[in-house]
């Protein structure tokens, strides 16, 4: 009986693993959109102001706006004005496998573009630069990473931040208990409710969450970052040069022409759902990134 149990999985595995690699041309995203007349955006529930839920439970944000520009260009390119746009919620942990298995075509959120991920997926031009930091309650008075020693610290499952936290924890022998959260909002709530001492995340995501919290004044950022500012990019499937070319062309145009206006709209003006203004000044590095669009995963290339 138990032997028979393994047969179905084994069969499936042999079947799948012996498949040869398909050529990419007929399997490309553009061809797929043309055939299905559908493009699926992977979006986030709590990555304000990049990709998040507004008061009507609809997804909105800076990255989604950029993605919709890409969609418009795709419609024009394929001469198919009636392509449907579908939005699928993803988390940090599900976005890469869902991109690989074709569930989503563009991931519009707050995904760090790094060399490690470039082995699985690819990215279009950088739309933001952010460093990994921790946030804690002001009353806890935590400043340096070493202050987290022996504490319970939360970070989002599948993010680059949790990897950086694990690495710092191992290298500095801090004995931190790392708890993975499903999404960013849950991470900050764990700190707010006292479940965790700190939440490790990108500074911009923390700023967005704290701005929307019940009492923004209760939180304080740590002074020591886990990383230098790293690029965010809209994620695409790997080995799909035709689709990447469109995305690169559109985002380059958008960032050069409207980049600062878009920045003003999402980072320097009140945004839904609570009409909070994040008030994040445009840094020289960010200004440079918008003027010189690049999808380079190396953080050093963005230094101002």
């Amino acid at each position: 009986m138990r032997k028979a149990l393994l047969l179905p999985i084994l069969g499936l595995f042999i079947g799948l693993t012996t498949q040869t690699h398909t050529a990419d041309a007929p399997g490309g995203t553009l061809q797929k959109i043309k055939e299905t007349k559908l493009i699926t955006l992977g979006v986030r529930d709590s990555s304000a102001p990049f990709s998040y839920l507004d008061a009507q439970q609809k997804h909105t944000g800076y990255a989604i706006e950029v993605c919709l520009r890409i969609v418009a260009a795709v419609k024009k390119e394929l001469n198919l004005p009636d392509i449907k746009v579908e939005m699928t919620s993803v988390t940090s942990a599900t976005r890469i496998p869902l991109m690989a298995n074709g569930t989503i075509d563009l991931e519009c959120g707050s995904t760090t573009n790094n060399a490690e991920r470039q082995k699985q997926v690819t990215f279009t031009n950088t739309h933001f630069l952010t460093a990994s930091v921790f946030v804690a309650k002001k009353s806890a008075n935590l400043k340096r990473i070493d202050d987290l020693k022996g504490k319970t610290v939360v970070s989002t499952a599948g993010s680059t931040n949790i990897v950086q936290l694990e690495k710092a924890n191992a290298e500095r022998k801090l004995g931190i208990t790392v708890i993975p959260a499903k999404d960013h909002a849950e991470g900050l709530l764990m700190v707010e409710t006292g479940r965790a001492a700190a939440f490790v995340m990108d500074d911009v995501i923390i700023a967005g969450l704290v701005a929307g919290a019940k009492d923004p004044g209760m939180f304080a950022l740590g002074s020591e970052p886990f990383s230098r500012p790293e690029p965010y990019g809209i994620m695409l499937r790997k080995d799909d040069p035709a689709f990447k070319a469109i995305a690169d062309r559109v985002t380059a145009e958008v960032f050069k022409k409207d980049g600062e206006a878009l920045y003003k709209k999402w980072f320097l003006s009140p945004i839904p759902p609570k009409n909070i203004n994040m008030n994040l000044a445009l840094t020289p590095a960010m200004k440079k990134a918008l003027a010189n669009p690049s999808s380079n995963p190396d953080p050093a290339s963005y230094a101002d």
Partner: protein
Amino acid sequence: MFSNFDFGEIWRALPFLFLDGMRFTLTLTFLATAGGILLGTVLALLRLSGGRAVSAIVAGYVNLMRSLPLLLVIFWFYFLVPYVGQWVMGAPRPIKVGGFTSALLTFTLFEAAYFSEIIRGGIQSIPNGQAAAAAALGLTHAQTMRYVILPQVFRTMLPVLLTQTIVLFQDTSLVYVLSLDDFLGVASKIAQRDGRLVELYLFAALVYFAISFCASQAARRLQSRVAIVR
């Protein structure tokens, strides 16, 4: 202790909770139950009357599903099904499946294993004499199943099937891990957006309880009604 309790939060969330969330949950529950019972019946029949190899494969499938946590199976399917679709259909790229379809497929295939065990138990509980009598009357095996055995099985097993459906209804909450918009998913998204975990999780618990409790009372009442007196 309820000083911070904001009932208005639940009130504002109601349209999303029920029109989006509960609709997703109930649709998933009903479709997966229907599919699960259908496939479960086929599996049970194959296991009982198929050849040796067939019944071994079916048994393997049923036991595999029953030994794995549903959560792991949900992840497996969400990530794997598009590739399987590509492989089966010989498509040039993974087939886009989508959250709801993936969940429906997962629950149908997973719960079919449990339904098939219930139905198999039901078939085995019918005295052998009935099948013999049907055969003596000249009914084929298929006819015997169709007209004699299965109607009784569904009747006697109805309460158990309903109980399993209630379990399925509760299990659909696990699609929370995929960030889909089921009842709990919507509740948690609103809860996390507004920092109102206490209100929304308590309310979600209450709603799940009310529905499951009423349904299980109904199952209990059904049990005394449908019992076939032998």
